[in-house]
């Protein structure tokens, strides 16, 4: 049975359309947080600096006609800002920050991802904003939290990944002569923190329904990433595992790893007897397996056996194609999967079924299939109904109207 609606089913309900969010963010974590909310129908107003706009407009990948206005060709910006409105306002000037202060009366939440101290510099002091705006939810995303020590003032995602413990332990089973790695892509730490922040903001808005009180939320990227390894870190901090300088502290034993096929790579997981039996079938009952005890993975997982198993399975895979051999293995109960690249995903029958990609028509970038979100809500699915805004596209339509609304609210309250 299909629980989630097909496109065009006429179901236009959105979970968050009662909320207006002011986005002051200028990098990936805060913009991604805003997108997660706007794709659920929240009215996200992005404040951009005049002329240049958000710095993410200058980051690739770029698409569209190379002659087009350069600030409108960023695929990164287009991805991170679907369904948002763009209002230009120079909040670094006294007049601009005064306008910003007035806008706070007519929004439910503010998202920011500048360094500690920046919010106070534009007149939204995390310590005191609640005096004026007791119902406001203010969310800050920073590398190390609002109280970052002096020696942690400057950080990119690479640094956070490495202060969180993930970096030192990436990859698994490292070659000790090579440096630890940065993780996937450019912005993994930012996406993780943006997701966490979105969860906190909606939770805070939920709590506000009854309490009528807002909250200050201080998301630390370092902590978000470190929390993602709680299964190990919790044991380390409780003394159940020994903390050491080894790069293998997070690792698991066993033969699970990546193998090369004729046309790409596969990932093999192998941890129990059933997997071993399935592998035996897949490989046609080869003789070398007979020298292994049936439960060697659980009980006698020696480095020699791991090496032998990998060598034989690797040789077997060299003449196979990744999709085909993975499908055969899955049928037998062996968790073997193709290592997919970003280009493989659009043709995944599962992604097609779940409509993970949504076609978006952007005035400069044209029509393209955007990746969406990993959850399907049957009654209120996330949707992309508008492309990312052009710089200042909504200034005229939204700014004056919001200020008038804020004025009215102020009179109402006084």
């Amino acid at each position: 049975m299909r629980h989630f609606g097909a496109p065009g089913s006429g179901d236009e309900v959105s979970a968050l359309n009662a909320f207006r969010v002011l986005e002051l963010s200028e990098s990936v974590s805060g913009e991604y947080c805003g997108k997660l909310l706007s794709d659920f129908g929240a009215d996200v107003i992005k404040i951009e600096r005049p002329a240049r706009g958000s710095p993410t407009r200058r980051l690739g990948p770029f698409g569209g006609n190379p002659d087009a206005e350069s600030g409108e060709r960023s695929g990164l910006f287009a991805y991170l800002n679907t369904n948002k409105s763009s209002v230009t306002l120079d909040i670094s000037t006294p007049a601009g920050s005064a306008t910003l202060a007035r806008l706070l009366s007519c929004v439910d939440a503010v998202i920011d991802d500048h360094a500690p101290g920046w919010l106070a510099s534009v007149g939204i002091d995390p310590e005191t904003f609640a005096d004026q705006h007791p119902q406001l939810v203010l969310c800050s995303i920073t590398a190390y939290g609002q109280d970052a020590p002096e020696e942690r003032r400057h950080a990119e995602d690479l640094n956070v990944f490495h202060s969180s413990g993930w970096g030192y332990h990436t990859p698994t089973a490292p070659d000790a002569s090579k440096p630890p790695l940065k993780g996937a892509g450019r912005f993994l730490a930012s996406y993780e923190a943006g997701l966490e922040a979105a969860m906190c903001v909606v939770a805070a808005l939920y709590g506000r329904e009854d309490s009528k009180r807002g909250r200050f939320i201080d998301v630390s990227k370092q902590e978000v990433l470190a929390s993602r390894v709680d299964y190990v870190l919790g044991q380390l901090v409780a003394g159940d595992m020994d903390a050491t300088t080894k790069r293998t502290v997070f690792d698991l034993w066993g033969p699970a790893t990546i193998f090369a096929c004729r046309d790409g790579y596969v990932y093999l997981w192998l941890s129990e007897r059933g997997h071993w039996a399935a592998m035996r079938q897949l490989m046609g009952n080869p003789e070398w397996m007979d020298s292994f005890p049936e439960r060697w993975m659980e009980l006698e997982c020696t480095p020699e056996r791991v090496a032998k198993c990998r060598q034989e399975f690797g040789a077997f895979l060299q003449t196979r194609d990744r999709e085909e051999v993975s499908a055969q293995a899955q049928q037998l109960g062996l968790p073997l999967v193709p290592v997919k690249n970003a280009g493989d995903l659009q043709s995944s029958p599962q992604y097609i079924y779940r409509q993970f990609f949504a076609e978006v028509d952007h005035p400069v970038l044209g029509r393209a299939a955007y990746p969406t979100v990993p959850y399907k809500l049957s009654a209120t699915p996330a949707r992309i109904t508008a492309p990312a805004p052009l710089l200042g596209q909504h200034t005229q339509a939204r700014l004056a109207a919001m200020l008038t609304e804020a004025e009215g609210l102020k009179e109402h309250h006084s």
Partner: protein
Amino acid sequence: MSNPARGGPLQGVRVVELTRVWAGPFGGKLLAYLGAEVIRVESLGALDPSRGYGRAKINQAPGFQAVNPQKLSVQIDIKSGQGRALLLGLLGKSDVLLENLRPGAIERLGLGYEAVKAVKPDIVYVSMGMYGNEGPLAYQTGYAPSFVALGGVTFLVGYEGEPPTGMNIRYGDATFGTAAAFAAVVALMHRRRTGAGQFVDVSAVETMSSMIGDAIMDFTLNGTVRVCDGNRHPEMAPHGVYPCRGGDWISIAVSSDQGWKELADLIGEPGLAEHPRFRSHADRKANETELDRLIAAWSARHDARELAAALQKRGVAAAKSQNSIDLTSDQHLWARQFYRAVTDSAGQSRPIVGPGWKMSEGAAITSAAPRLGEHNAYVLGDILGLSAEQQQKLADAGVTR
């Protein structure tokens, strides 16, 4: 005995967990950290395997304890008719069901969405599956490294010009759990405003893809398939992890020409800052291998922490690559109460990993992971209203323990 009021934005929300190992329990943990009352329904006959890893005693399994603080546990044999009825009774008084059993398992237990909806029409029912709950590949199962590979993440991690290595083998479950927790909170909000519950179907593979959205956009817009590139970054150079004294490593990321000038000054080689091979970002990208070699030769003579401090003073983004000793002794993480002590049922104090946020008027986080069935009396008595005699009968019949 119930929890005292802990505060937090989700105070008053009750979550029932039918989860195993890591991803599902992690999602439940986040909801508990936000103030929800999270009840694990467990049974000895179909135990969460993580209760059995590492220790003979099921109440002391360290991995389980790491991921399940601040939750309650009730032990019910949900494969029995009476047990199933108890669970449905509990769901009738709950707001969220979170499950990550094997594909189809929850339906076989008679606890699919329709069955639960019959007793609790506005339930927020969150189902987590490697490929989601429905579709041509929904039958497939895998472990975290499997879905990290399927989602496109593994392919992007590795050394330049070499086969991918992938993330550390532990990556994936917690992120998947977070996506589920976020979706649950959104569905709760919808219910708060309209009264309607819904079915939430979360895919682990897609969660992974959402961690590399910009790389997917590059393919979407340009047909470019990005490959692993070591520690490089198209918009920053240098951008890498360099050796230090004593086998340590430091991460350094330079995002501007000024940053490069500061780094070059600290390296102290005459003329380096203005050297034509490194002057601009484009120069540094063009000669990056040489640049990395030069920095590594310099950094190897220094202490990682001192070097990071010196670079920070100059405004350059740098941090020691923290090993597990550094990580567990990180004073900033202790000061922010990311690490904090909680109390277990025997009154013993135990340090745990807290949430990735601080929040005004946040929920109190005070309890260690529950013993199996620790909260039977609260769930069966206080929530379901069963008398002591009725509870005893269920225990005698083996429905609860």
